[in-house]
């Protein structure tokens, strides 16, 4: 079975083409905003970023956030490296003091079914692109949820946060993200601490009760002062009449 060489080449190239497009498709990831269930009970949402010289946001997938619902929601991040092209662009954006933005879709962490998780819209945040470059892509991303597990906000800061204008020479520094990620729910604000206060008061009264000196009556405690005062009064009143008489006479 000897097929013509041209046909062979054509088949090969077609195959290659199909394969190649497939690969490209894979690279591109899922449709933006897709939520995927993962094996270990969590689910994943895309984390997207955008940095453009003209500052018109064009979000591309940066990685996938694997969120795990539950009482203590946890999160993990798998993210791609920055390509050569992106690195150059990021530096370019940093040079014009552009913004590096990220966004995540609004999701509900607590829901069981996938359909309930997804909400319309995105949560966005930004840092200055220069800060991103100068910190060598080390950023801290925190996701904030509300009481019922809805994602309400995302924030990103870089460490260090300042733009000092230092040139990043080594291209390698801009390849891998060094991300610290956390999910934060609301803290319960404290109410008035009455129990502890009452306890303290009780302890004080007890102490007072134990201390015999405190139990003594007013007279028992200060008899010497009262006596002294009384003597003083008597003495002074005894001394007064002559003096008064004297003043009357003059």
């Amino acid at each position, binding site marked *: 079975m000897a097929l013509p060489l041209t046909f062979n080449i054509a088949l090969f190239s077609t195959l290659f083409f199909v394969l190649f497009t497939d690969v490209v498709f894979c690279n591109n990831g899922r449709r933006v905003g897709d939520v995927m269930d993962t094996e270990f009970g969590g689910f994943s949402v895309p984390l997207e970023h955008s940095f453009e010289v003209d*500052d*018109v*946001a064009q979000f591309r997938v940066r990685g996938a956030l694997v969120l795990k619902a539950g009482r203590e929601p946890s999160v993990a991040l798998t993210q791609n490296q920055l390509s050569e092209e992106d690195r150059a662009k990021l530096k370019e954006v940093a040079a014009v*003091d552009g*913004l590096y*933005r990220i966004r995540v879709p*609004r999701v509900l962490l607590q829901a069981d079914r996938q359909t309930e998780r997804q*909400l319309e*819209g*995105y*949560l*966005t*945040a*930004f*840092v*200055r692109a220069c*800060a991103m470059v100068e910190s060598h892509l080390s950023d*801290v991303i*925190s996701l*904030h949820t*509300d*009481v*019922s597990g*809805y994602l*309400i*906000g995302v*924030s990103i*800061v*870089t*460490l*260090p*946060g*300042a*733009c000092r204008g230092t040139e990043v020479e080594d291209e390698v520094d801009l390849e891998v993200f060094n991300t610290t990620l956390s999910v*934060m*729910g*609301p*803290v*319960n*604000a*404290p*109410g*008035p*601490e*009455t129990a*502890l*206060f009452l306890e*303290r008061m009780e302890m*004080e009264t007890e*102490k*007072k009760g134990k201390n015999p000196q405190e139990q003594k009556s007013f007279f028992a405690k200060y008899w010497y002062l009262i006596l002294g005062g009384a003597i003083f009064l008597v003495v002074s009143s005894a001394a007064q009449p002559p003096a008064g008489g004297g003043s009357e006479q003059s």
Partner: protein
Amino acid sequence: MAKLIWLCLNFVILCSTVGAVFEDQVGKFDWRQQYVGKVIFSNFDAQSQSSKKVIVATENNVFASLNIRTGELFWRHVDAIGPEGKIDALLHHGQDALLVVGDGRLLRSWEINIGGLNWEIVLDSGSFQSACLIGQQDIVKHVAVLKKTAISLHYLSNGHQKWIENLPESETVDYQSVYSGGNGEVYVLGTVPHSHIAIVVYSLDDGEIIRQFSVEAPWLSNIQASCAVIGEGMLTCADSATVSMYMLDLETQTEMSQIPLQSLGLEVTPGFQPVLRSTQPNAARPPLSEFFLQVGPEQHLLLQLNDGQIVTLRDFNPALLVSFATTGEKTIAAVMSPKNTTACSVNLFSAESGRRLLDTTLIFPLDPNGGKPEELYVQAFLKKDDSVGYRVMVQTEDHTLTFIQQPGRVMWTREEALSDVVTMEMVDLPLTGTQAELEGEFGKKADGLFSMVLKRLSSQLILLQAWISHLWKLFYDARKPRSQVKNEVTIENLSRDEFNLQKMMVMVTASGKLFGIDSKTGTIVWRHYLDNIPANAAFKLMVQRTTAHFPHPPQCTLLIKDKDTGLATLHVFNPIFGKKSHVTPPAMPQPILQSLMLPVMDQDYAKVLLLVDDQYKVSAFPSTKNVLQQLQEIASTIFFYLVDSSQGRLSGYRLRTDLSTELIWEVVVPTEVQKIVSVKGKRPNEHVHSQGRVMGDRSVLYKYLNPNLLAVVTESTDTHPERSFMGILLIDGVTGRIIHEAVQRKAKGPVHIVHSENWVVYEYWSTKSRRNEFSVIELYEGTELYNSTVFSSLDRPHAPQVLQQSYIFPSSISTMEATLTEKGITSRHLLIGLPSGGILSLPKMFLDPRRPEIVTEQSREENLIPYAPELLIRSEWFINYNQTVTRVRGIYTAPSGLESTCLVVAYGLDIYQTRVYPSKQFDVLKDDYDYMLISSVLLALFFATMISKRLAEVKLLNRAWR
């Protein structure tokens, strides 16, 4: 240990007492003005000739009596806010005033001389329709109250119910009016709209239905708006569609007779609903047969019903307002007609004949900065020669009451618009002419050494002259008795005092009237009425240019936004004189979402106002080339945020150089769970003096002073007491970063919040413990500052430490604000307006999350008060001693030139202005400071030193000789 705590507490309390006023200081630094609101019912006390009171009932649910000589309040009763306390009707009989309150919930009788309550009864439920006094044989003994489904009759003397009857067919018939002509019958008039009038006649004695009939009236929809009873029980209605009057004799007829107005030779302005106005001077007698018919906006007719025929007595054209008044047996008609552009004239006419009474013209001056006259209240009285004299009270659109005596003397005016202040600002007064002259010298560009010297000399001369004249005035005034020295406040003599304690209060009221009030005396210096203000307008007042930029006049801008459409207009004015500025504000065809004042100034020193419209386009005002250029330069550092509470969305934008914007962050709080109720930033004019707090171990805890921080308060949609909560989000307004997120469980609003320095204080209702609680959040950077020179939201990677503590507060609160001083050195107090009318000055040190539960050596070193769960209200903390501020809605604080002093204005139904000294007057000598003693001691010491020095010298010399 306990002793130590006690000592410590004592010490703290002693240290932190607020300087309360002494008896002789009452009214020295403070003033209060009491208002009643927009008048809806008013009656003159016609009991005696010398009576000098008018009773008014207002939209603000206030019932009061005013002194007609001075306009001051005799007494005032303030009822509950909202429909619960709404005054439905005011009937006046002799010494008693009857009020129906709260949609027919209560019937009250007041004694009008002293304002005491005679009696009060609770009426049966049902929505109120009408009320009237019922008399028989010239004696008025009863009052009838008509409700949707029932009519009840009560004795005037004690309020007891005589009888109550259900109205027949009340499901279909809309009963609207009750009438009695004094013949023992009570007529209840109802209508089935566009079908017929239903009339039920009750017997006064036992409430039995005497008669019941209905009359065809397909053109009628509202009896009260278009009908009146005239003469001997003649129901007369006016209809605009058929341009005719309909008449019905209630006693005999069962059909209405139509009288086309054309047959009377009358014409109605097209589209105008004719209005009938009759008068019934005595409830025990039928109404008079004379009545007014308004046929156009400015045309009134005095008509008479004579043997079933209508006769035109007089045609008043133009006539703005008409009113009947009765004194003795005489009834007169007062007619206000426009005279020229600055005044209106009021004339009296005999009601019986329509003849004009001689010498009864009264001139009502129209205020060019006021509104049009809206209502005319006439007090008529018989003079000695039996002629009729009168005074009038005119109410204008801007809620002003003006009381005028013949021939046009304005006795008093009351600016009732001030009972509803929406927002206010305090503006520094300008310098005096001489000071301004000096300022001008430095302001102008230098032109040669010689001319500068000359200028300097001349201004010094002017100063000298001013000083001498001041001395002369002092000397001159000192010779006069104190009572004669009056300091009238006028625009001319308004000038800044040494410590900038006197300022101009610019107040914006809901009616659209602006006021300029001198803060020292409370005198209204200027007023300006803005007509065409939408009914539900939101106001934002901004000071664009202060008085510091002589010769440029100060400039305030008022943003008026229609809440429904979002369309806004700007009113630019001079806050000192109230005059509209020559600067033309930009036209804003798009709804405005946000406005922000930048610290950037144009070449005329006016701060730039940015307005963001619904297309997220930004426009600047003023928008000169200079401004646009500056904006372009700093565009990338201008951020703003928008809040859409209906979607729970907070979004941040950045300005671009072409004045468009870009969305840079978004935070979305799902509305299913909680809704955003308020967003509070910090005040831009706030200074924080100390960057940190020194702790017990001498280290410093630095404050997190983020000027862009926003405190967002949310409330849960679930209102069940077990599940309801309130949330508090601290968000950076530039980056959208959530700095802190907390929920207060089992809590609900209304939440009052104050956000300042590095702390947020809020008050809420705890549904679990059923009490009001205060909570304080403080933010600290830690013991090291990240960047001590400048704060940038973009470069603060570390989250601050958050401390929080809560306390029980024994009262609910109406409003809350923090004191503000020039440099922020003085400790802060919270000013809390209580529903009881007190204004509490609570030291911030009691709301400090670092208050320790267990006292340690270090906390004592730091002067921290040991934690106690309850905040007590000490009576000496009330800054308004016995000057109750009723229904306080807002507190405004402004710094003065003295660091220790903060100016406070509390507004609600009343306005109260005072000064507070949170750390006492550390920079002021006391009033009774003994200058003589200190100077004589100093002198004595000086001489003693001189003498002893001399003596010592002599002694030394003598010793040397020895």
